């Protein structure tokens, strides 16, 4: 790194900034599509968090839930693919029966693990952060154990979903085309996520379910006294949220990649929690924050794939590749620390609700 001061002396800083902007504009189209894609698991984790925490349950186990679902989805699809033999994919998204069954299996697994978390937090009333951590430890352990065993078998996977795709003529139109490309050049899980964000936002603030959910997260006793079963409401939300985390896991092993890898969630669940906080516990806000965090990955991927030329490339060549790898995590910490003080959690978040009659 000793070369940097010399390089900075030689090149005026202003010029560098202009070059960086030029590079970004030139590459915005691929970067933004990648960013949206990379944001999908973060957004799904964040939505899972919003659904739990709005009703008053903290779920830091969603990293583990995603990991388990990534494994279950991939393994189920591989088993089905093995049993059915090669099949022609549907014309859309490269979907095969194996992949679809894989996603379904992941969702079921996600809801089951969430049911465990719901029981721990709501019925057993243990510390929810400890409970979530145990799920994370268990998920890493059990998927590691299974994956070591399974990788001894010769499994041919079920492949992966493919993006919807936007015709090249449209995708290259500045602004409108770029935007369409960013949004539509996604696989089925990515597109579903965008739709879920919109529906979830409307439901949370306009539906009966949303009103009751928000009230339960703020003042569960008040909710109980108007005749609503807080326990059941929280169970339902936590179990439903498991399906969201499951989609995030399925995305990792079936839409982004083609197979499971040990600890492949790589902290995305926790980045999702940060996105939830930065997005102030609203679905749209959480998705926005997820995009923000993902843009760091988008940028670093872009720099790896098509490194900038000229002086900018010169400067970047001094930056170790590890910096770009760490950038999403650095951005997450920095933004979280900057925003968290102004972002107020639901008042009863993380507090187990105890009925008076529970004796």
């Amino acid at each position, binding site marked *: 790194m000793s070369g940097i001061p010399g390089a900075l002396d030689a090149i005026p800083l202003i010029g560098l900034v202009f070059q960086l902007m030029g590079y970004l504009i030139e590459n915005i189209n691929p970067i933004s599509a990648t960013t949206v894609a990379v944001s999908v698991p973060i957004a799904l984790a964040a939505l899972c968090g919003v659904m739990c925490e709005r009703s008053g349950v903290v779920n830091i186990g969603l990293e583990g839930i995603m990991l388990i679902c990534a494994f279950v989805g991939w393994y189920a699809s591989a088993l089905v693919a093995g049993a059915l033999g090669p099949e022609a994919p549907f014309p859309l998204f490269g979907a095969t029966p194996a992949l679809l069954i894989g996603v379904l299996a992941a969702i079921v697994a996600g809801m089951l693990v969430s049911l465990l978390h719901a029981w721990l937090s709501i019925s057993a009333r243990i510390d929810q952060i400890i409970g979530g951590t145990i799920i994370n430890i268990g998920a890493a352990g059990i998927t590691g154990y299974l994956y070591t065993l399974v990788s001894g078998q010769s499994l041919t996977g079920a492949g992966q979903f493919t993006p919807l795709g936007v015709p090249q003529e449209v995708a290259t139109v500045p602004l409108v085309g770029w935007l369409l490309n960013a949004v539509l050049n996604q696989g089925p899980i990515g597109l579903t996520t965008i739709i879920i964000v919109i529906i979830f936002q409307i439901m949370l603030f306009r539906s009966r379910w949303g009103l009751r959910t928000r009230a339960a997260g703020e003042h569960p006793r008040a909710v109980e006294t108007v005749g609503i079963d807080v326990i059941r409401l929280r169970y339902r939300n936590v179990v439903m949220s498991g399906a969201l985390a499951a989609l995030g896991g399925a995305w990792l092993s079936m839409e982004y990649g083609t197979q499971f890898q040990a600890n492949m969630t790589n902290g995305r669940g926790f980045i999702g929690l940060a996105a939830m906080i930065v997005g102030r516990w609203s679905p749209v806000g959480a998705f926005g924050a997820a995009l923000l965090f993902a843009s760091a990955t988008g940028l670093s991927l872009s720099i790896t794939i098509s490194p900038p030329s000229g002086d900018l490339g010169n400067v970047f060549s001094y930056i170790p590749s*590890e910096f770009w790898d760490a950038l999403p*995590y650095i951005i997450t910490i920095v933004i979280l620390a900057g925003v968290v003080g102004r972002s107020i959690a639901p008042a009863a978040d993380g507090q187990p609700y105890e009925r008076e009659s529970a004796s």
Partner: protein
Amino acid sequence: MTRRVIQSLAEPLAAIVLALLAGGIMIFLLSGLVPGRQPFDARLPIDAYGALVSGIVSFNGLTSTLVYSTPLILGGLGVAVGFKAGLFNIGGRGQFLMGSIASVAVISAIGGATGPWIAIPLALLAGALAGALAGFIPGFLKATSGAHEVVTTIMLNYILFYVSNWAIKGPLTLPRAPQPTTQDISELNGALYVLPFTRDLHIGVFIALLAVPIIWFVLYKTTLGFEIRSAGANPDAARYAGMKTRRLIVLTMSLSGLLMGLAGSVTLLGQVHQTSFGYDTGIGFDAITVALLASSNPIGVLFSGLLLGAMRAGSPAMQSQAGVPPDLINALQAIILLFLIVNVLRRVLARRRAGTSTPEPAALTAGKYSTESVQ
């Protein structure tokens, strides 16, 4: 008094026994995936646990248990100190890595020139301080901005992982190695071998054993310990009582990181001798398990550290003799904690004595990410 000790032992023991049973069932159900075994082979759990025990109960197995326990005890103390202050340090992995890297750096820089008697204490010191720094950052962020340490320590784990990779590839790299790795320091630190006739027992064991009473004394016999425990049990009351809760957060996270860094340092100096990409002993989760099993009691950490160390020491034998991968231990850990945290024993007993209420949840950490009220 003895009654209380027995009670505090009964619950973890019941959890362990039940978890081993559940683990046995899991091995049984998945035995079809183990090479050379039929599906639903009832012998497999017995073989696996037998191999595990045989891996522990031998002279080498016992010294190896001590060696594996060393970082677990230090790391477990680190997590336990955090829990006492209401802080959840999941950043053990990153802090451990920093401890290792700092120790390697010191040895590489001065080891040849000064010899082990100066270099090794300095390496330990550097490892502890590097860990403390890695713990200071999330502590500082929490105290100043309220960012929850659970998220920041996890993020730091990844950041420090890449920092360590950069160091292994860059300044600390061993020239002409096929894979990026650091210098092997086992020749230099021969002085660390305590008992000449053991294969692997090193001085780090004594550091860990010494840390237990020191941390116990700090927590229960000093005013600082009272402040840490008060801040953990009720931060608002601690502030009311005139304790500087922000400073306590930073201090406790640093102390927690220091113990983790020390764990990384002794493991590197006495056990693994060099690091390469992706070096991870699983300390982050293991230390949490150790602390939870001990209800954050330093004396308890000694025993739970030894227990998990024994399982780690025996697991290679389980792999080689029964074909059951050591990852099983990670899964078992979670099952033990699950049974422990839901108080299986008390739940079962309580059901019999109808009418008693469910036990209070162990409030180890405040359940929120943002603590706006830290002042």
